[in-house]
C-alpha cells in the first residue's frame, strides 16, 4: 500500500484531539498554533505546571519542524506546501501526546535516528550534561537552530521518544515523532 498523507493525518485525528494542523510551517502558523493551545488550556482549565511544560515542548517541536523541514518535490506530496509539516496534539489520560510529521530525504534518516536513539538511552543527569555541553560549545546555525531542541524536550518531559520512518518514494520517507508530556 502506498503512503497517503491524508489517510495518515485523518487516522491520527480521533476524538481526543486537542489541536491538529497540517500544511506550511511558517512563523505566523507557529504563532497561531501557540495562541490556540493557550486558549485551549484556559478552556480545559489545565493545571499551570502542565500548561507551561506543554507550551515549552510545543515551541521546540514546531521550531524543530520550522528549522529542519526540507524542500520536497511537489509531485510527492501532491501539495504546494514546500515547508510541509504536521502536528497533532491528543489528550492522553492526565497528559498529552504530541505527534509531529514531516518528509525527510533518505540520507537524513541515519543521523536523525542515531540522535534520537542516543537521547532515548540517556538518564536525566546525562541529558542535563549533554544540554549544558551543547549550550556552551556549539554555535547557533545561520537559521537559528541550536541542536538543543530534542535534548530539551527529553529533559522537560522525562519521557522517551517514539518514532517511525515510512517509505514514500525511493528517496523520501515520512518521519513521525511521538512526544509524551505527562
Amino acid at each position, binding site marked *: 500500500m502506498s503512503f497517503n498523507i491524508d489517510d495518515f493525518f485523518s487516522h491520527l485525528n480521533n476524538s481526543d484531539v486537542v489541536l491538529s494542523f497540517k500544511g506550511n510551517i511558517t512563523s505566523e502558523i507557529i504563532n497561531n498554533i501557540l495562541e490556540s493551545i493557550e486558549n485551549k488550556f484556559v478552556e480545559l482549565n489545565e493545571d499551570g505546571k502542565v500548561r507551561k511544560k506543554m507550551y515549552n515542548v510545543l515551541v521546540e517541536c514546531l521550531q524543530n519542524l520550522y528549522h529542519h523541514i526540507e524542500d520536497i518535490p511537489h509531485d510527492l506530496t501532491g501539495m504546494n506546501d514546500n515547508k510541509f509539516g504536521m502536528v497533532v496534539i491528543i489528550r492522553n489520560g492526565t497528559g498529552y501526546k504530541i505527534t509531529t510529521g514531516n518528509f525527510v530525504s533518505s540520507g537524513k534518516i541515519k543521523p536523525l535516528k542515531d540522535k534520537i536513539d542516543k537521547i532515548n538511552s540517556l538518564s536525566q543527569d546525562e541529558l542535563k550534561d549533554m544540554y*549544558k555541553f551543547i*549550550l556552551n560549545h556549539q554555535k547557533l546555525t545561520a537559521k*537559528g537552530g*541550536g541542536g538543543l*531542541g530534542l535534548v530539551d524536550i527529553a529533559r522537560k518531559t522525562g519521557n522517551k521518544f517514539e518514532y517511525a520512518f515510512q517509505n514514500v518514494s525511493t528517496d523520501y520517507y515520512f518521519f513521525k515523532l511521538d512526544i509524551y508530556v505527562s
Partner: protein
Amino acid sequence: MEPLLIEGTAKTPNVRFDGSQGLVEIKGRSIPENSIEFYKPLVDWLDRYAQNPKQTTKVNIQLEYFNTSSSKCILDVFKKLEVIHKANKEVVINWYYEEDDEDMLEAGEDYESIIRIPFKMIEIV
C-alpha cells in the same frame, strides 16, 4: 551611553538596559525562530557597557518562556556580564522563576554553573 529599550512582543521579551543605573533587565517571553537577530543589539550594547561599567550592575532576568534558540543567546549575554565580573566590578544576577516552575529554576542553575557568577534565585509567588 544611550539606554537600550525594547518593547516585548508575543515572541520576544521586554528589554531595559540602562547604563546610568547599571541596570540590565530582560522580562517576558523569548521564543523567536531566529534569536540571533533579536539578541545581537543586546550583546553589542553590553560590549560597550563592559568598557566602562558601574561599580554595581544589577541584572534582572524574568522569563516566562524561552526556547533553545534563545538559550545560547542568553548565555552570550551572561558571558558579557562575566567579563564585567572578572574586572572586579560587582554583578548581581537575579533569576526570577514562577512558583512551581522547576524547569525555569533548573535553567538558571545551568547558567550559574557555566558562568561562575552567583545567581540569586527568586521565586515569584
